């Protein structure tokens, strides 16, 4: 038998769902019959469409089921109605609560958005928990471990080959800036030399081309879709495949594959990958020498491998090499951790990193929510006596305790709900600001289930946290007591309420002191005398063309307006990554073997650009022909480490025998998280990768024009990319600066919200004591006495809160500061001023209410009874 055509199931189900059972058979039967008829006479598609239409048209008031109101929904709608009425009746109370919760929630939403983004970094790699990064743990001047993320090519290969549980590995260079040209267009791009492991172990999927094609020989490279689009336009990027691109040195490379753009939340970012062999071929040492640390190396472990073995095993491989020094180690870290846990202690163990900021902001958000929740609890319980009659009456009429509790919870829920809606709007409005502050493209994903789950969780959590205690208190009144007007004393909620006020101010003080300390530390970092003058200095990394023409550029530039001095160095003196233990001095013994010196190559005029003062001696001089061969400059720390009392004239073995001609005062050649290292400054010998230009004060614009003109004239094809040393410094402490800004907001809002609560409590108390105040006034009490009466209690609580909060704040801030090698000391004023401020604001809030109560004409208050 032929199967009958079927109408759309969903429409049928919908009909069955809404239709009254007694009508269903007739309606459904008729619609089915029409469907069968139309399917036969016209088309099935049309019949199905008409079926749906019939079902929808049949949805009428007369056909739909009666909505069953059961007891629960009825009670709930009643509770909701009462809750709305309460809001309208007590506008001030609602306003205080809603604004407090909404503001703190806005903050929490934005902060958690940022936190979530931070936590997502590097999590997109499918095998992320099995990919481990290899880093070197060198021994520093004090004999302790100093972790550096770069290893030798030899080590990266050995780890891959020798360990049976390592499935695969990737090795690639640090990010290099290259000028790639296609036809007559030039592009400045950052990319790496890497092996095929880059595309095998990480989630960098190829869109076009193949790994095989790309790594067949050294004449090809892989480029990102982004770069392909820059080359061939938004839509025609696919054409890039197979095209030849020119490197600066004239070498041409064929595009063997195009890979998907690397996600924002990746720590590894590059727009091209050139076959690593190409780089290895350029320098024999690079491939062969165990001491040539120049590679980022990752290994992918097999899924059944024991990751805890890895560090030990790789260290052993390294220990068998010829460059191994006693105590050195290889540090391994999962790629998913390396962004947040980037700081190591002196034993090579992870001690923290950005995770600290993530935690700070997470907890600060929670604190702020707690403070707002406490406001609600306080105000709700304080108003308990006002509602006692209502509760009693309900009880007399027969309300059960459960229904009373659910009524008060409904009120809390309503307030939370309104606050959430407000907070969502506020958060969305302030999102652009947060984006520019954090430098991240943050957005709320309204389509994700997690987002709504999270909001649901916040709703429930906040409602229960702020509603459960008041609802139990309110519903526990004894009718007889209330009706005899004998309540209030035995409420039992007083201690609890006091505790909460104290807790609120403890939290506030921690946030405020935290903000002050963070601010001070950041101010200190920003303005710390680094030992060199970084203002008015332009910093350029030189590409090979610029490097080749450096002397011409320098001599031309010197005569141009706005330029004060020019020098070139191997490294930025604010980040000297170059280390060596190959420095010998007369009194050197075995105990000094582990000492690594930072080595900086510098040209003439170094001192004029950086203004690093000399402790003694002199700098390199242009006219002294012997300098490039024979001279060396050290810093004070080096003199100290070498134990030289009179360093000048001492001979050192470093790149030949050299005489110390000068000692510079210590300057920070690293971040302030790290100590100053011993340093050796050698005359420039072709490693001038960085160029520095000191501009005349206030003539920056002219200097930049001069730069542009000279570069255009001498190396017209190379784009000019520069940076101010000041910006470089600020960028480096970006997360600290961000913390500082946010800490200010947190402090501001926490005290604001706390005082909102206090204001509410006191105004309530004043209202409750209207008669008492009036009678006291009639009997001759002064305004001052009444203010004291009202505020004494609260100010005591605030003071207790602050006394408890101060040591806590001290503990937290001290902990944070310890992480900086150079930090401010905690000072009394950092605690006294915030405390004083908190008391002042609290007193002002309380006092304002007190005065209002005290100024009232007693006649008005008393005539009512």
């Amino acid at each position, binding site marked *: 038998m032929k199967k009958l055509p079927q109408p759309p199931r969903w429409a049928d189900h919908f009909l069955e769902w809404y239709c009254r059972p007694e009508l269903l058979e*007739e309606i*459904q039967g*008729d619609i089915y019959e029409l469907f069968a008829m139309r399917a036969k006479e016209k088309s099935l598609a049309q019949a199905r469409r008409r079926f749906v239409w019939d079902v929808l048209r049949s949805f009428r008031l007369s056909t739909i089921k009666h909505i069953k109101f059961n007891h629960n929904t009825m009670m709930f709608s009643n509770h909701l109605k009462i809750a709305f009425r309460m809001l309208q009746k007590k506008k001030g109370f609602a306003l205080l609560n809603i604004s407090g919760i909404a503001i703190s929630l806005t903050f929490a939403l934005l902060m958690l958005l940022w936190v979530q983004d931070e936590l997502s970094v590097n999590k997109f790699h499918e095998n992320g928990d099995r990919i481990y990064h290899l880093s070197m743990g060198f021994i520093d001047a004090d004999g302790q471990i100093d972790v550096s993320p770069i290893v030798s090519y030899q080590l990266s290969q050995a780890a891959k080959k020798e360990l049976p549980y390592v499935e695969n590995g990737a090795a690639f260079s640090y990010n290099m800036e290259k000028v790639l040209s296609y036809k007559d267009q030039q592009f400045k791009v950052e990319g790496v030399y890497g092996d095929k492991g880059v595309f095998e172990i990480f989630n960098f999927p190829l869109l076009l081309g193949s790994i095989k094609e790309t790594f067949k020989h050294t004449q090809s490279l892989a480029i990102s879709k982004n770069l392909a689009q820059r080359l061939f336009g938004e839509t025609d990027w696919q054409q890039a495949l197979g095209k030849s691109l020119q490197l600066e040195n004239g070498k041409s490379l064929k595009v063997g594959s195009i890979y998907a753009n690397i996600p924002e939340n990746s720590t590894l970012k590059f727009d091209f990958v050139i076959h690593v062999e190409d780089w290895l071929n350029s320098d024999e040492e690079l491939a062969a020498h165990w001491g040539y640390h120049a590679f980022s190396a990752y290994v992918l472990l097999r899924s059944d491998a024991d990751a805890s073995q890895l560090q030990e095993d790789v260290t052993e491989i390294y220990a068998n090499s010829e460059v191994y020094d006693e105590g050195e180690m290889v540090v391994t870290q999962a790629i998913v951790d390396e962004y947040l846990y980037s700081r190591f202690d002196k034993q090579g163990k992870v001690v923290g990193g950005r995770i600290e900021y993530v935690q700070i902001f997470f907890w600060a958000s929670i604190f702020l929510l707690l403070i707002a929740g406490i406001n609600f609890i306080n105000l709700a319980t304080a108003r308990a006596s006002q509602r006692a009659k209502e509760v009693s009456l309900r009880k007399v009429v027969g309300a059960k305790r459960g229904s009373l509790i659910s009524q008060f919870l409904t009120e809390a829920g309503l307030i939370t709900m309104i606050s959430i809606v407000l907070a969502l709007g506020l958060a969305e409005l302030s999102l652009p600001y947060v984006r520019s502050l954090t430098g991240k493209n943050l957005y709320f994903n309204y389509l994700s289930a997690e987002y709504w789950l999270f909001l649901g969780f916040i709703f429930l959590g906040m409602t229960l946290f702020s509603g459960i205690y008041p609802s139990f208190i309110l519903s526990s009144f004894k009718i007889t007591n209330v009706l005899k007007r004998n309540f209030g004393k035995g409420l039992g909620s007083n201690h609890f309420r006091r505790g909460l006020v104290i807790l609120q101010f403890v939290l506030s003080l921690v946030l405020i002191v935290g903000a002050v300390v963070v601010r001070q530390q950041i101010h200190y970092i920003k303005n710390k005398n680094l030992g060199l003058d970084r203002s008015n200095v332009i910093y350029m990394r030189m590409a090979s063309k610029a490097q080749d023409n450096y002397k011409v550029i320098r001599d031309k530039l010197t005569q141009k307006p706005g330029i004060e001095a020019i020098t070139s160095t191997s490294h930025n003196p604010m980040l000297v990554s170059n280390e060596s233990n190959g420095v010998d001095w007369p009194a050197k013994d075995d105990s000094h073997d582990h000492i690594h010196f930072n080595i900086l190559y510098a040209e003439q005029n170094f001192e004029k650009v950086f203004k690093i003062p000399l402790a003694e001696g002199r700098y390199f001089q242009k006219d002294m022909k012997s300098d490039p061969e024979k001279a060396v400059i050290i810093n004070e720390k080096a003199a100290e480490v070498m134990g030289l009392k009179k360093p000048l004239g001492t001979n050192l073995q470093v790149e030949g025998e050299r005489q110390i001609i000068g000692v510079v005062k210590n300057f920070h050649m690293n971040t302030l998280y790290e100590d100053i290292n011993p340093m050796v400054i050698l005359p420039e010998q072709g490693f001038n990768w960085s160029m520095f230009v000191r501009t005349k004060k206030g003539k920056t614009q002219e200097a930049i024009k001069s730069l542009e003109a000279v570069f255009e004239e001498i190396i017209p094809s190379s784009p000019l990319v520069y940076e101010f040393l000041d910006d470089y410094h600020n960028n480096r402490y970006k997360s600290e600066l961000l913390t500082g800004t946010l800490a200010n907001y947190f402090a501001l809002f926490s005290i604001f919200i706390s005082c909102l609560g206090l204001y509410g409590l006191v105004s309530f108390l004043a209202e409750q004591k209207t008669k008492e105040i009036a009678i006291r006034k009639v009997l001759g009490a002064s305004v001052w006495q009444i203010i004291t009466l009202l505020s004494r209690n609260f100010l005591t609580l605030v003071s207790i809160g602050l006394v408890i909060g101060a040591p806590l704040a001290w503990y937290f801030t001290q902990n944070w500061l310890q992480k900086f090698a150079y930090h401010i000391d905690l000072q009394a004023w950092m605690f006294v001023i915030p405390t004083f401020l908190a008391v002042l604001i609290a007193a002002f809030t309380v006092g304002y209410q007190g005065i209002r109560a005290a100024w009232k004409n007693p006649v008005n208050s008393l005539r009512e009874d």
Partner: protein
Amino acid sequence: MQRVNLGEFEELVLLIVGVLQGEAYGVKVLEEFNEQTGRAVNISAIHAALRRLESKGFVKSAWSEATAERGGRRKRLFSITARGVQALEEVRDLRNRLWEQIQGLGLNPNPSMT
């Protein structure tokens, strides 16, 4: 006089139920309605009208046997009741009375028309 509350659409449906003589159910009424009036209506409108007529007591209904094209569902067959017949008659009488008066007017020549 008892007022008969019968809308134009209801009246037509009631008449069709009468015409169909015990064979009237939703789809049949719909088809007959289409045929007789040339107006296309939705089945839900027919259902609603039948429900109203039944609640006013002008039609009564009974279940028929099940059929395959209805997915094994029964038909609800409507037939006109005595009150329904009476209502129709009343409406017709009213109309007739009114028509007679219009025809009376129509005998008067209208001067303006000439």
